[in-house]
Structures are given as C-alpha cells and as structure tokens.
C-alpha cells in the first residue's frame, strides 16, 4: 500500500518553537503503522522569504528542500501553509531550473498536510483516540490548508471520531485569523483587529480548546489568547489527537 512509509517534514517553526507537535505527529503516524523517517538535513521550506518578498532567498531554500526530500516516497508535515509553499509555489519559484521541473512536479504531489495524509491517502476514519475528559473543541480553518489544499473535511472527520471530543463550529470559521506571516509584524494593529473578531467567535463557541492544522496561526491566535487570559487554550491538531492515544502526549 502506498504511503506506509513517510518522511516527516517537521517545519522550522515546529522544530524550534513547538517540538512537541513534531513528537505528536510521529506518535500518530506510528500508531497507524506508518514507518516514519526524518531526513536530518531539513530546515525550512522557504515560506518566510517568499512571504516577505525575498524571492532569491526563497528560491535557494526551495532548491535545498527538493534536494533533501528528493528520495522520500511521501512527505508529511504538520502544517498546511508549508505544504502549500511546496504544492502551490514551488513550480513558479523553481521555474528557472528546468532540470528540476520533473522533480518538483512529482514532489508537490507527494507532499501532504498531516490530516490530508491520514484521511485522503491512508483512508483513516478513526484513529482510535480517546480523551480522558469531555472536551469542547473548535476547529479553525487555516487559509492555505483550506484554499490551496482543500483541507476542511479531513481534520473535522478525525476530530469527530475522537471519544470524549465535542466538535463545535466557529462562526465564520473560514475567515482568516489575521496572521499572514510578515503581515502580523508589519501591520500589528490590523492583524490584531482581524484576530479580535476571530477570538470573539472562539469565546462565544464556548470551546475549551482551539485547534488548527498550522502551528503558526496557533502561535498568533494563542499568543493573544494567553495575553487576554481566555478560557480556551490553543492546541495543534496533532497534539490533540495524540493526547488521546495510549501513552499520553509523548511518543
């Protein structure tokens, strides 16, 4: 069966800020009998540079990514936006390297966001996770996962199957959270104005946990949720799903 072997692309932000999300991802995949490897040369997909307008830097990092993951059968990342960088932007970014064209085309079609991989490729319906106590969970649709990758049904399906988890729909769940990478730093006031509307919906949903497929959006939303001492806590979907597996949150 294809996809029983997967290379983890952990992403730079998870690597440096949220290594637990990486561990949870490995735990989930192994629980489902996927043989996971971790190409140690990996660093970043280049999204930071692409987003900031540093095209040449993004090109160099993208080339590196292609080299590092060329030998991988399937690449799985706990991030919709990093996968989008590969899926949507690599063909254009690496247009000037015709020798890489076939590699890029093939690579973009075997790089998956975690929930997309589990549901669409592995055919998983229920990972067999069970939360120790009833938890109300709101799912936020991260923009790139939603609009570039079509990830919307997959994470909801996985969440709904978890015992003890009640999935609630956020009002305007598909509206952006206001992160936008460099945007959140260049235009903090606008970013916060957008975010506050989102947090209002989180609040009124009564959720205990706000989850999403992107650590970076959660960093933004969670950073303000902490500052505002909100009841809901942010949690990446990999961690949330893995927390209900035997053996707790650690792989």
């Amino acid at each position: 069966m294809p996809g029983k072997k997967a290379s983890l692309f952990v992403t730079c932000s998870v690597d440096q800020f949220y290594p637990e999300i990486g561990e949870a991802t490995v735990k989930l995949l192994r629980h489902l009998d996927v043989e996971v490897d971790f190409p140690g040369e990996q660093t970043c997909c280049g999204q930071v540079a692409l987003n900031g307008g540093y095209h040449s830097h993004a090109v160099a990092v993208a080339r590196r990514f292609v080299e590092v993951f060329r030998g991988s059968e399937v690449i799985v990342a706990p991030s919709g936006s990093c996968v989008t960088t590969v899926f949507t932007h690599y063909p254009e970014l690496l247009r000037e390297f015709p020798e890489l064209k076939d590699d890029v085309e093939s690579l973009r079609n075997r790089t998956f966001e975690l929930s997309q991989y589990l549901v669409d490729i592995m055919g998983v319906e229920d990972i067999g996770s069970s939360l120790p106590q009833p938890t109300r969970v709101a799912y936020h649709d991260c923009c790139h996962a939603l609009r570039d990758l079509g990830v919307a049904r997959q994470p909801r399906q996985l969440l709904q199957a978890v015992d003890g988890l009640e999935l609630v729909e956020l009002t305007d769940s598909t509206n952006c959270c206001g992160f936008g990478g460099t945007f959140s730093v260049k235009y903090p006031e606008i970013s916060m104005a957008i975010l506050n509307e989102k947090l209002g919906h989180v609040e009124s949903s009564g959720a205990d946990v706000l989850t999403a497929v992107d650590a970076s959006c959660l960093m933004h939303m969670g950073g303000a949720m902490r500052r505002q001492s909100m009841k809901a806590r942010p949690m990446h979907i990999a961690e949330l799903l893995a927390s209900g597996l035997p053996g707790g949150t650690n792989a």
Partner: protein
Amino acid sequence: MPSIRTKEFTPRASEAINNPTIQESLDRLANFRQGRADAIAEFGQERWDEHSKRAREIKEKTLDHLDHYLDLLSTNVERAGGKVFFAHDTQEANEYVAGVARANGVKTVIKSKSMVSEEMGISDYLVGMGIEPVETDLGEYIIQLAKEAPYHIIAPALHKSKEEVSELFQRVLGSPAESDITALAGIARKVLREKFLQADMGMTGANFGVAETGTIVMVTNEGNGRMSSSLPRVHVATMGMERVIPRLSDLSTFLPLLTRSATGQRITSYVAFATGPKRRNEEDGPEEFHLVILDNGRSKMLADPQLREALYCIRCGACLNACPVYSKVGGHAYGWVYPGPIGAVVTPSILGIPIAKDLPFASTLCGACREVCPINIDIPRMLLKLRSDATEGPAGTKKPDRIESMMMRGWRMTVSGPRMFGLAGKIASILQWPLSRNKFLRRLPPPLSGWTKSRDFPKVAAKPFHARWSTMAIPPEKGDKDGK
C-alpha cells in the same frame, strides 16, 4: 490625477480601525458577502463555474490580441458616428475631454460613476476650467459633496452613516435635517433631476466595450447612466483599454458574473448599450459621442506576464468584501482610486512600487479574494510578485528595508543546513532568557515589538525537534512488528 496618499497606509488604517462609525459600516460588508453567496446558489454552482471559466478564456484571448480588438472597437464606434480618442495617460485624456467641453461651450457636466474618470481626476480638471461637474450616482454624489475619494468600487459612500449624510446635505445643500434614508435619497433626486435636465454634457464609464459592434455597456441601478447617455447634447464615455470584449454575446457570460458578484443581484435595474450618437431616425439622444480609451500604465501590466492577469478584472468589488484587511481598514487607507486586494495589485503597477510599496504587503495572503473572484484572478500570487519586486526588483523599482534585508540574510544562513539551524536556535534560547516569563516572551525589541504589544511570543525550545529525533528514531514497540 487625484491625490496620491498611498504612503499613509498605516496611519489611515489605524484611523479606520479606531473609528466606530466606520467599523459599523464595514460590518455591513457581510450583506454583500451573503448576497453574493445566495445569488450564486440561485444561479447554480456548476453553471457559475462554467461562466467563470469561459469569462477567463475570453479575457485571456482578448488581451492576447488586444491591439486587434481595440482597433476593431474604434473602427466600429467611428462607423456608428462616434469619435474615439486613445490616451496614453490621464493628462492626455483630460485634455481631450476638456477640448470636447470647450468646443461645445459646456457649462455643466453630469457624470455617471466611473472608476476611470476617478483615475483621471477629470472632475478637478473641469472645475479648473470653470465647468461644473456633477456626480449623479448617489454614493458618488455624497462623496463629491464631502470632497472625498470613493471608499469602495461599487459602494463609494459605504463608510458614511445616514446621520453623516444628513449633516452633509444640511451643510452643502441647505436641506433640513433628515433621518430617513428614503427622504435623503429624495433630496438628492430633486437636486440632481434639475442638473440632468440642464447639463450640456454627460460622462459615463463603460463596464464593457464590445469590439464587434462598437457598443459600450453601462451597468447601473439608479438610472443615472441612462440619463447621462441620453439627455445631454454630448456623451463622453471613458474606459480602461482592457475593458474591451470581442462580441455582444460575450455579455451573457460576463453580466451575471458581474452583478451577482458585486451586489448579489440577478441583474441590475438597467443595462444600457450605447452605440455612437443618436441616429437619424431616433427621437432623442446625444448629437455627439466620444469614447476615450485609456492606457495609463496598463500596457506595463500587459507586458508583464505575471501581472497581466490583473487586467482581467471586471471591477465587481467582491475581493474587497471578502478581504479581512479591507474589512477592517476600509477604502481610504489604500490612498488612491482602487482599494482592496485588486487595488493592492493595480496601484503599485500603475503608480510604481516606490510610491505604493506598503500595499502589496498589507495582505494576509489568505486567498479569500482569489476564491470569490468571478474571473479566478490569482491576486495573492501577484502580491507575492510585487513584494519580490519591492525587495529584490530591478533598481528604481525596489525599495527594501535595510534592517529587514539584514535579518533575511541572517535567516538564509540559518536555514542553509541543520548545524547552523541548531546553532541559531541555541543562541536564541540564550538571548531570550532575560525577556522570558514561563514559556512565553512578553516583550520583544523592534521590529518584533508590534507582535508582543498584544500577543505573547513562544520561547525557542531548549531542545529542538532535530535533537529530540535521535532519541525517538526507533519506535519503541512498532519497530519489531514492522519487521525492521
């Protein structure tokens, strides 16, 4: 050209965010969004997608042969007795319109809403000649009285409350205070009806120019477009050169996309098709018809394969309504004629990046604009291209930030391999120590200070994933089971 205030994006955005009346107005964009969704559902999603696809094909092919279609359009307008003027820039366009007005001894011009005429700044130009230009679309009329720029492509006075409109009418027109919106519209109707009947020249835009028949098409709800093209002795229409479509039947593709995307209407109350001036056996209509076709930087976009797509735009405004940024900062922050996501592409393309550098960065790249665009224009892709031009583009184009470029070079070195990456993490985890509280940072130095003003920032992990992998490389139980 109208005033350019693109460099004031941040302060004007801030003004809007902190103005409750404006935020209330912007919240009403939800009506547009809902109207659009309902209108598409009624039309049928599959049929909608077919129309979108067809519209894009027509736009692609038309622009690929733009010289041919402009030639055809102008030939057919002239055949119908009209005059066509091709203007490289707004100065030429204004001078031509002024010449027509002068030759006809025009005193009053009635105008129907047109973004190109805003781009030209023709109203100020006419005032300078002692001619009175009167905007007749209710929203445009309101902002003309308030001496402001349009706030939204299809709802120019979106930001004004009825109280503000009443106050404005009292101040400028001397009308009594009025809290009823129908009565406010009635005041404008009365004033403008007289202007309509006394004007010597009417100016309109053109939503489409049909090459094969030499017809310009005006899509309106109020009837002012019909008035402007029927009552005065002279009719001058202005259009961007990209608005040409090959044939009449193409409108059955474009019109439903335009009106349903814009206001959620099946169709507008009026669609007027004007072909040249009044013909011999007609009872009424203008004696003269002029069509001004404007380039003003559009050929630069045509010449750039990555920006050409922006010329497919039919100005429905759906991307503004869907945009999380526009929905907070409103139209004036964008500082020129075209606001919102499409404005963030068009404005720097026309005015140049050094003047409008902030705009392409003022987006979260969420893709909502692309999702609602009836022509499937990939606005986020073009914003990325313009960002790249702003930082790394050819000299004279770029306008990079020095500290930021330095940081980016540092980042590039960091991600050049796992050793540097690990080392950078270590250094950061040491540097962050004095700033941290628990697992979070509450205050960072510029340029990250904007983040921590209202958000905590996570600390760099003491042990990054790279380091953790070595202890988890072999799965504790599953390793044997898989036979490895």
